[in-house]
């Protein structure tokens, strides 16, 4: 089961003269929860944007299931089975919660431009949408306008939308940011559950969560990869300690 699902090879992306991502190589194994940590501005979001096709690298190549996807567009990449979430909430505020999720689920239905849709497909669509909303504990919010939901709920909806597209690889950009304690525990639980069937690339600032659930960790600083390894290897890495993790963080995780 431990074969490579995604291989990013030597990616570089500049914004003007600023190198946001520099010679980054990443190997994601099928079924492994891989986390990326790093200080603000390290280039984590940019890396995810490169992998999901929102941006194209200046240099380097991305292979997904042995297929080159470097120059593909976001919709093509999504249809290959890579789902992503956004650091800034990115939902359709005027839709209800259910409609947002339905829009996502719908993208996997094979219809003629969504102009004709059989009754069976509509039913399937509803089931899929409900299943995704249930997974993130949002079923009770079906008819609420997305814009009026709480921040945490909007984050959950964001997750439900990815799940509704039934991806194999999930790229999650800080899914826990700004969430309350209880909500974030629910999501961590969900992530662990998802990790059993999916490959996850998780960008997260919440160190407790990351060290608790990630099997592989990559530390990024200033657009470069500092270290990759298991949580123990990262904790004990001198380079990482110096550059990023304060000692107290380490203590907390070991204690």
């Amino acid at each position: 089961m431990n074969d490579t699902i995604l291989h990013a090879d030597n990616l570089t992306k500049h914004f003007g003269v600023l190198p946001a991502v520099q010679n980054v190589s990443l190997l994601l194994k099928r079924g492994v929860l891989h986390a990326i940590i790093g200080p603000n501005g390290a280039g984590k979001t940019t890396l995810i944007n490169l992998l999901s096709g929102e941006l194209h690298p200046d240099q380097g190549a991305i292979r997904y299931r042995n297929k080159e996807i470097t120059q593909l567009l976001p919709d093509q990449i999504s249809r290959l089975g890579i789902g992503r979430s956004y650091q800034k909430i990115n939902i359709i505020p005027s839709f209800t919660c259910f409609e947002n999720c339905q829009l996502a689920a719908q993208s996997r239905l094979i219809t003629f431009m969504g102009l004709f849709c059989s009754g069976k497909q509509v039913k399937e669509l509803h089931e899929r949408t409900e299943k995704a909303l249930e997974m993130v504990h949002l079923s009770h919010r079906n008819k609420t306008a997305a814009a009026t939901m709480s921040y945490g709920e909007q984050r959950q909806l964001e997750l439900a939308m990815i799940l509704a597209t039934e991806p194999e690889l999930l790229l999650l950009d800080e899914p826990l940011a700004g969430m309350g304690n209880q909500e974030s525990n629910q999501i961590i639980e969900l992530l662990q559950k998802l990790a059993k069937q999916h490959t996850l690339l998780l960008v997260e600032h919440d160190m407790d969560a990351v060290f608790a659930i990630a099997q592989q960790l990559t530390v990024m600083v200033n657009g470069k990869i500092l270290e990759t390894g298991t949580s123990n290897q990262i904790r004990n890495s001198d380079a990482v300690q110096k550059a990023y993790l304060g000692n107290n963080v380490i203590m907390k995780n070991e204690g």
Partner: protein
Amino acid sequence: MALRPESSVFPFQTDTMISEKKSIYFFIIFLLLALFPWIIEESFYLEQLTRILILGVFAMSLDLLVGYTGIVSLGHAAFYGVGAYTLACVFQSADVINFWYALPLSLAASALSATIIGWLSIRTSGVYLLMITLAFGQMCYFFYLESPYCNGSDGILLLNKPEILWGAYNLLDLENETHFYFFVLGWFVAVFLLLKRILQAPFGQIIQGICANESRVRGLGYSTPTYKLVSFVIAGTLAGLAGFLEAAHTGFVTPAYSHWHQSGMLLVILILGGIRTLHGPVLGAAAIVLLEDLLPNITDHWKLLMGLLIIVIVLFLPNGTVSFFTRIPTQSAIQYKNKKHE
């Protein structure tokens, strides 16, 4: 989207109860429209209503584009002109206009031109989109003005109405005003129901999603340019239908059909009536036709008056005239609720 009113957080009908109640209203209105020739027998008003319905079809088609897809076009009249000129050019010297050939030809021509113009336009957005659609619209206008087939600014006079034959039997006699009214009403209702259906289908949700947040919809796996193009082509084809109806109605086609004034006027109608509803544009069309008719009786400077009126409506009813009708029930509902709590 500049044209999107801030206050409309819930533009989408999800509550089946409300939408059922709404369909009853629509049914009653359609019924009244069907009975109109017997209710008011004066042919002047029938004529006006025919104009309103044709303009209504035209305005609804633009609303699909502007209100629901977020493509603000200043060249929509191009397709109105294509629909009209296809009829006029092909059949100007024909003794008999066979409806079964004429309409599909007009629709095909407008669909084709919408595909080409749409394909080139949808890549842009904002002011650039306005400019490129404006340019295409004016290109069509000048084509009709200069082309040797189109008789320049004099336009083309159609001596006959299309004939809708079924075997040897004439289904509708379009020379007859009442028959023509029913012909137009039939198309109006068909277009209304078709658009309603399209908007409720997944396609409708997708384009409304694109209107609100295109990159997000793209990230979900939709090839958004394709959806925008399809929406553009549907809207263009329906505008062609409106052009065909208008040409058949007046029997006279001039380059003015495609002038940017026409496109601009249509945008005004949308904003006046209420964007992102299907009945709003029709209401706007009715308002414009009636005002154009009534105001000249009051003053010679009626265009000034009309401009003022438009400004007043936009200022006080930012969601268009339809909000005047939706606002009253909500307020009485609130009062009712408050009373219940007392």
